[in-house]
């Protein structure tokens, strides 16, 4: 694992992006895109979560094993989600 000290600038940049995306997500919520609303909101949230993970949580500088673990968590959440909801929409 690399104990890479990341320049402060990166962190401030990430911070500003996160704040901006928060404003965007609030603003966008006032327009109606029909069924797309939820996808847009979740899309923005996912972008935010990803950059938090990559930079604040240093995932980007971590070994592949850490990626595997983080990925497994998300994949399993997805499995639970999809198979459960699939039951309801095919009733």
């Amino acid at each position: 694992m690399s104990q890479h000290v990341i320049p402060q600038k990166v962190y401030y940049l990430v911070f500003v992006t996160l704040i901006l995306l928060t404003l965007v997500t609030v603003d966008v919520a006032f327009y109606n895109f029909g069924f797309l609303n939820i996808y847009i909101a979740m899309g923005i949230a996912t972008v935010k979560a990803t950059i938090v993970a990559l930079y604040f949580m240093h995932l980007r500088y971590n070994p592949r094993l850490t990626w595997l673990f983080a990925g497994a968590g998300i994949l399993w959440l997805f499995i639970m989600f999809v198979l459960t909801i699939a039951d309801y929409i095919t009733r």
Partner: protein
Amino acid sequence: MSNTVHHSVVDRENDYIHAGYGLKSWLLTVDHKRIAILYLISITIFFFVGGFFAFLLRLELMTPAGDIVSAETYNKLFTMHGVVMIFFFLIPSIPAVLGNFLVPLMIGAKDLAFPKLNLMSWYVYNIGGIFALYALVNGGVDTGWTFYTPYSSTYSLSNVVPVVIGAFILGFSSILTALNFIVTIHKMRAPGLTWFKLPLFIWASYATSIITVLATPVIAITLCLLLFERLMGVGIFDPALGGDPILFQHLFWFYSHPAVYIMIIPSMGVISEVVTCFARKRIFGYKFMAYAIMAIAIFGFLVWGHHMFISGQSVYAGFVFSALSFMVAIPSAIKVFNWTATLYKGHIEFRTPILYAFGFIGLFTIGGLTGLFLASLATDVHLTDTYFVVAHFHYIMVGGAVMGYLGGIHFWWPKMTGRMYNEAWAKFSALILFVGFNLTFFPQFVLGYLGMPRRYYIYPDEFQVLNVLSTAGATILGLGYIIPMVYLLWSLRKEKNVGTNPWGATGLEWTTQSPPITHNFEKTPVVTGEPYVYQEEEKVVE
């Protein structure tokens, strides 16, 4: 650390058992081997508590009418039996006892990665246990171990809350152990010990830990929601309040089906070690065995809906879950065949552990094959919620997992204690267990096919003969569990009478003294060879 006593003049021995004296040295220990012993004690107590309930159940079922206990008591008996056996005995059994003891030894490490966390997990386990026991003395709980809503959330008048809190707390104990194993296996293997040189028991512990980490949090949150609903009177699962009871079943089985593999995979690991040791032959298809374990662990997550074929789940979801259930049977098939092939052309030595292994293979096969009856949609409609299911899971959990656990205890007992038990008694009790087991549970397959529903306190007369057989078997079975208690404890009174490697087995745990020293190895071992290199003839290292 404080094991500097070994060169003192007093006649003290330099092993983990003698590394410190007094209760405090045990209750505050961070040595994985001592924690394993602590777990062994807790788990054994719960096993006998659960077994006692089973015995009362069987007694009641001897006659069609309700004569020994009341209906409420009966319902509490099978609930507490299931809860205790599953959550407090079988899930922690092999991981927390044998796994704790062996994982660091087998990979040549001094301890688990987080020793304090390990001790904490034992305390957490016991706190969970106290809640369950509190519920017990306070009148018990009657929801069935599955806690189906809305019965558990709204209608049941029994102690749902403490039991659910107990199970919730217990979950953290499993998670802590699993997390510890994962990190330890990843980060603390001895130099040269690559993944495909690991003993299969380590693969099994790893796979089990992965399942635990991914599944247990889901039951935790599900139980939280259940508590929330029950305490606040809001609707999450109760349709009268706008909720959906099937969601509970989805979340519950998302955990509880993988949990059945938490129970069986460690046993499979034990059996792999035992079979190759007493066949004096390398395990057949090592890599397939390792992959099969991982495949069971992963695909085991995709089949939970097979518990819900008649629940009102969609037909299409039923198809998917059924097909996947059949697929998950394939890696299990590989394991059974490979054990069998390992024995072929071996030099089989009939010591006690392999008798348990034979029992395991046979009974697990029957249990697994009857799982196919249940995975098959149309037959499950008839068989679900009957004694066929009860027989299926006891074949796997008692005939399989518990046999594997006992086999493992017998295999590593000399390592853990430095003593050999009386093998004549041990073989006798293995036989008793096998006979008693089949007499108890085989009739239940027939009962289930005839249509006797499970969780029935009274039943129609025509089912009596088979029930009497089952009860008779349970008595024999109970006896079979008491004998090992006696001769194992008895063995402790003897002199230390085994060397480093009494079975002539491979594996790092057999290269250090019995019982091991606190730091496991005088010097960190370096691994160069493959696992399970058994020579044509046995080489007993003394």
